[in-house]
């Protein structure tokens, strides 16, 4: 019985260690710590990084409350990054407005390194003013690399360069960027193809 408990504890500790303490990118030949891919995680969490009480992090992908980091805000939403189930990287977006929509999209570290995270959310897809569109990029990819026009970008007050917020419906195209390590990054904008269907 004691052995079984010890074995279970050891297994749990291993799972926790693998999912949190060893977040390295295995794909694309890169072996980087998570802080090198998401620099926000390199800084300790401060009071301003904590999400508002109404944001149910469990419902948004089992995001650990002590992992959230504030990325910035604009006239349409506030943005955070956090660590979800199995150590996934999650982009969290709290859209301003009556509906109080908070959305998240999560990716494995490998997928995040390859394509980042894109998310569109809001109260009404037919009214862009009630919606927000944002992208979280790995540290080595910038908006200049993507060649995103400033007109497409909203006036985000980002605290991290890795966050790009666009206006829904800006219709940016797909871009592929070759990295020095031989891997590629693919920027695939989320199209707000919603409606009554």
């Amino acid at each position, binding site marked *: 019985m004691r052995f079984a408990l010890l074995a279970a504890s050891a297994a749990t500790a291993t799972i926790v260690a693998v999912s949190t303490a060893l977040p390295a990118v295995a794909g694309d030949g890169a072996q980087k710590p998570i802080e090198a891919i998401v620099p926000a995680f390199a800084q300790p969490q401060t009071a301003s990084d904590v999400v508002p009480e109404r944001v149910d992090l469990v419902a948004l992908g089992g995001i650990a409350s002590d992992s959230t980091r504030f990325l910035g805000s604009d006239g349409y939403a506030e943005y955070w990054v956090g660590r979800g189930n199995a150590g996934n990287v999650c982009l969290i977006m709290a859209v301003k407005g009556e509906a109080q929509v*908070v959305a998240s*999209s999560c990716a494995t570290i490998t997928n995040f390194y390859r394509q980042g995270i894109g998310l569109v*959310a809001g109260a009404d897809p037919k009214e862009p003013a009630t919606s927000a569109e944002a992208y979280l990029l790995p540290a080595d990819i910038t908006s200049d690399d993507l060649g995103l026009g400033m007109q497409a970008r909203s006036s985000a007050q980002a605290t991290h360069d890795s966050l790009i917020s666009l206006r829904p419906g800006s219709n940016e195209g*797909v871009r592929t960027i070759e990295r020095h390590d031989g891997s590629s990054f693919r920027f695939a904008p*989320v199209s707000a*193809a919603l409606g009554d269907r």
Partner: protein
Amino acid sequence: MVLAKMQEQPSLQCEKLQPIQMDQRRRRRHSALITAVLAGLFALIATPVAQAAVYTYANNVSTGENVTRYSGLRSEIRGGDGNLEPYSVDGANPYVILETYHPAPGYRTIGFSQGVPPVAMIHTKATSAHQKCRWDWPWSSGSIGSLKLTCKTR
């Protein structure tokens, strides 16, 4: 004689106290039993309520592109989440689109979320509302077949 009286007294006290103590024990047992029964009843009631908070309307269901899955009428929706079996071509992924709404007439979206799965959202409580979800592959016009879709309301 005095000693004998003193020795008798404790036993007399015991005889006098015993019924009171037994009464107290009985009462304690009764209250413990009532507490246990109430706790059991609460668990019976609370568990289905807690389970009802999450309603799965597409459970790993093989679904074609832009084929919509519907929750039907729900008394209360506070959000939801959508997930899709992994599928990727050259780093491109399908999107999952999740939407809570009041149906026609007067169709109105309460909240929506679109992104690479898993996607989740929460919003203000919507009563007598519906939710729907689908997946989209915007990277080529050809069909990529069916993928297993999971969608839940909260």
